[in-house]
C-alpha cells in the first residue's frame, strides 16, 4: 500500500515526501532522519534565508525612500512639513507611504486582499447571473444577445485566463511543430532546406512575434467585431514557443538508432509502419523533452505578450497594477510574480511526469 503511495508521489515529482512516509512507518530512522534533514529541512532553511534577505532589503529601501521624502519636505517646505511627513510615515497612513519594494508581510497581506477580492467578485457575478437569468431567457427568445457580466475580473480569473491562453498556445505549437518536425526529420534535403528558417525565426523575440501576429490577425478579423486579443496572444505564444519542439522532433526523428532502422529494413517494413512503429516511438522521449521546453517558454513569454497585447491574464494584471500606482500595487505585482513562478514550476512538473511516462528508458529524464 505505502509502496504504491511512494511510487505515486515519486511519479508526480513530490519524491521529497518519501522519507517522511518511510519514517512514519518506522523504517531506518537514522537514514530517513538524515534524508529529511537534507531534502526538507535544508531547503526550508533556504526559504527562510530568502525571506530574511528580502525583509532586510525592503526595510533598507523603505528607510531610504522615507528619508528622501522627509528631506525633500524639509528642503521644499521647511521644518514643519518635514515633521508632519515623518509623523505621517510613522503612523502608517496610506497617503504618504514610501513607494518601494514591499516587505514579505505586505505581500502576504495583498495576497489575502486579492483572495477576498476574488470572493467578492464571485458573489457579485453570481448575483448578477441570478438577476439577469430571467431577462436573458427573454432576450434569448427574442433572438437578442444575452447580457453578460462586464465587471472587473478577479485575480483568480486572470490566472485562469492565462492558463487557458498558455494551453491554447501550447496546443497550437504541438499541432504545428510535431508534424513539421517529423517530416523534416525524415528527409535530409528538407531539413537542410528549412534550416535557415528555423535558425532565423527561433531567436526572434516574443514582442516581434506579437506584432507580426497582430498585423495578420487584425486584417483577418477586420469584419468581425469579436475581441481578437485572445487569438493574438495565444497564436503569438504558440509561435514563440514551438521552436524547441520543432528542433527536438526533427533531431529525434533524424537520429533514430541505426540498429532500429536496420531492423526495419531487414523486416521490410512499409514506410508508414516504419514511421509509426519504429521512428516515432523511438523519438518520443526527445519530442517530449522539446514539448517540456516549449511549455515553459510558452508560460514565460505569455506574461510578456499579455502585458503588451492588453489581453486579459496575469500579464495585463501586472501591467495594470504597475500603471495603477495604488499603495498596494507593488505588493500585488510581487504576488503575481510568485504565482507566475509557482504555476510555471507546476507546469514543468506536469510535463516531466508525462515525459517520464512515455520514455521507454525509465532511467532517463532530468
Amino acid at each position, binding site marked *: 500500500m505505502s509502496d504504491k503511495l511512494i511510487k505515486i508521489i515519486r511519479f508526480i515529482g513530490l519524491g521529497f515526501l518519501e522519507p517522511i512516509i518511510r519514517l512514519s512507518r518506522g523504517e531506518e530512522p537514522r537514514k530517513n532522519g538524515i534524508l529529511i534533514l537534507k531534502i526538507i529541512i535544508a531547503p526550508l532553511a533556504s526559504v527562510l534565508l530568502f525571506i530574511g534577505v528580502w525583509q532586510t532589503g525592503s526595510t533598507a529601501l523603505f528607510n531610504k525612500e522615507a528619508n528622501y521624502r522627509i528631506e525633500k519636505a524639509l528642503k521644499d517646505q521647511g521644518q514643519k512639513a518635514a515633521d508632519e511627513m515623518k509623523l505621517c510615515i510613522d503612523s502608517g497612513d496610506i497617503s504618504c507611504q514610501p513607494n518601494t519594494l514591499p516587505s514579505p508581510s505586505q505581500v502576504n497581506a495583498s495576497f489575502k486582499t486579492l483572495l477576498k477580492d476574488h470572493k467578492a467578485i464571485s458573489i457579485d457575478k453570481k448575483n448578477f447571473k441570478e438577476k439577469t437569468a430571467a431577462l436573458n431567457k427573454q432576450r434569448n427568445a427574442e433572438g437578442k444577445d444575452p447580457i453578460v457580466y462586464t465587471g472587473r475580473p478577479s485575480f483568480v480569473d486572470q490566472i485562469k485566463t492565462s492558463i487557458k491562453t498558455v494551453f491554447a498556445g501550447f496546443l497550437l505549437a504541438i499541432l504545428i511543430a510535431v508534424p513539421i518536425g517529423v517530416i523534416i526529420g525524415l528527409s535530409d534535403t528538407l531539413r537542410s532546406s528549412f534550416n535557415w528558417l528555423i535558425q532565423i525565426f527561433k531567436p526572434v523575440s516574443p514582442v516581434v512575434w506579437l506584432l507580426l501576429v497582430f498585423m495578420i490577425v487584425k486584417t483577418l478579423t477586420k469584419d468581425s467585431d469579436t475581441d481578437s486579443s485572445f487569438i493574438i496572444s495565444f497564436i503569438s505564444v504558440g509561435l514563440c514557443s514551438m521552436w524547441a519542439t520543432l528542433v527536438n522532433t526533427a533531431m529525434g526523428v533524424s537520429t533514430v*538508432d541505426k*540498429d*532500429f532502422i*536496420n*531492423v526495419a*529494413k*531487414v*523486416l*521490410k*517494413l*512499409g514506410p508508414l*509502419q516504419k514511421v509509426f*512503429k*519504429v521512428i516515432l*516511438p*523511438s523519438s*518520443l522521449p526527445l519530442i517530449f523533452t522539446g514539448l517540456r521546453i516549449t511549455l515553459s517558454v510558452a508560460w514565460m513569454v505569455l506574461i510578456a505578450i499579455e502585458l503588451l497585447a492588453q489581453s486579459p491574464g496575469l500579464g495585463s494584471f501586472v501591467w495594470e497594477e504597475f500603471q495603477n500606482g495604488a499603495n498596494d500595487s507593488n505588493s500585488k505585482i510581487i504576488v503575481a510574480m510568485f504565482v507566475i513562478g509557482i504555476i510555471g514550476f507546476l507546469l514543468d512538473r506536469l510535463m516531466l511526469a508525462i515525459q517520464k511516462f512515455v520514455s*521507454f*528508458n*525509465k532511467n532517463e529524464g532530468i
Partner: protein
Amino acid sequence: MMPTKIFKKQEKFAPAEVMLDLHDLKKVYPTPKGDYVVLEHLDLQVKKEEFVTIIGHSGCGKTTMLSMIAGLNPISDGGISVLGTSIKGPGPDRGVIFQSPSLMPWMTALENVKLGVRKVFPHATKKQKEDICKYYLNKVGLDGSFNKKASELSQGMQQRVGIARAFAIKPKVLLLDEPFGMLDSLTRGELQDVLIEIWNKEKITAVMITHDVDEAIFLADRVIMMTSGPSAKIGDILSIDFERPRTRKAVIGHDDYYKYRKYLIDFLEH
C-alpha cells in the same frame, strides 16, 4: 601431422545444392587518400541446410560481408545470390540476428517478434500470427515473458527474442553477426544451445560471424577463415564433420575436437 582428410578447401557445389552464392565479391570505401579495399575476390558458396561460421581478425571485413549479404551495405563489385537470384537490398528472405539485440524497447517481446511476422504472413489471421510468434518465443525459452517490455529483459533474454524474431519470419538464409559477443560466457553457452536446438528443427541455411573458436566449431558444418584486411578474402575452410544433433559434451570429448581447434588457432595466430 594432421590427418588431411578432415580439411576441405573451397570446392564447387552443384548449382541445385547452393543456397547462398557470393562470387568475386568486392567492397571499396572511397577515402580522401584513395579507395580503401575491404574485400576483394571473395568467393563463397553455402549449401542448403548448412551452417557456416566465419572467423577472422577484428576489422577484416567479416561484418561488412555479412551486411552486404543482408542487403544493408551496397556491393561494389561481384554479386550475391540466394537460390540463384541476385539480391536487391534487404528482404525477409534473409533474417538477421544483430550483435546487439536491437529490439524496440517500447514494445513487448511478443510485439517485437510480431513486427516481422505481420509483414511476411500478410494473409494469416491475427490468431495465426500470434501463434507463430508464441511458438518461436516458446522455443527460445521465453514462454513466461511474452508481455514483458523489451527494456525490462536482460541482455541474454533480449537476444533470445532476437533469435525468435529472426526464425519467425522463416527466412531462407539466417545471418548472425556475432550475436553472442556481448554476453557473458555462461549465457553465451545457453544461447548457443537454444540456437542449435531451434536450428536443428528448422535447418535454415546460416552464416554466423564469431570471434570464439569453440563456438565456431560447435555450431558449424564448415568454418570459414578470412584473411586480414585490406583486400580480405577467404583464407581457408575447415570442414567440421561431427554428427548432428550435437551436444557440447560429445563435441568437446571428440578426438578431432582439439585438432580442429589447433588448426583454427594456428590460422588466426599466423
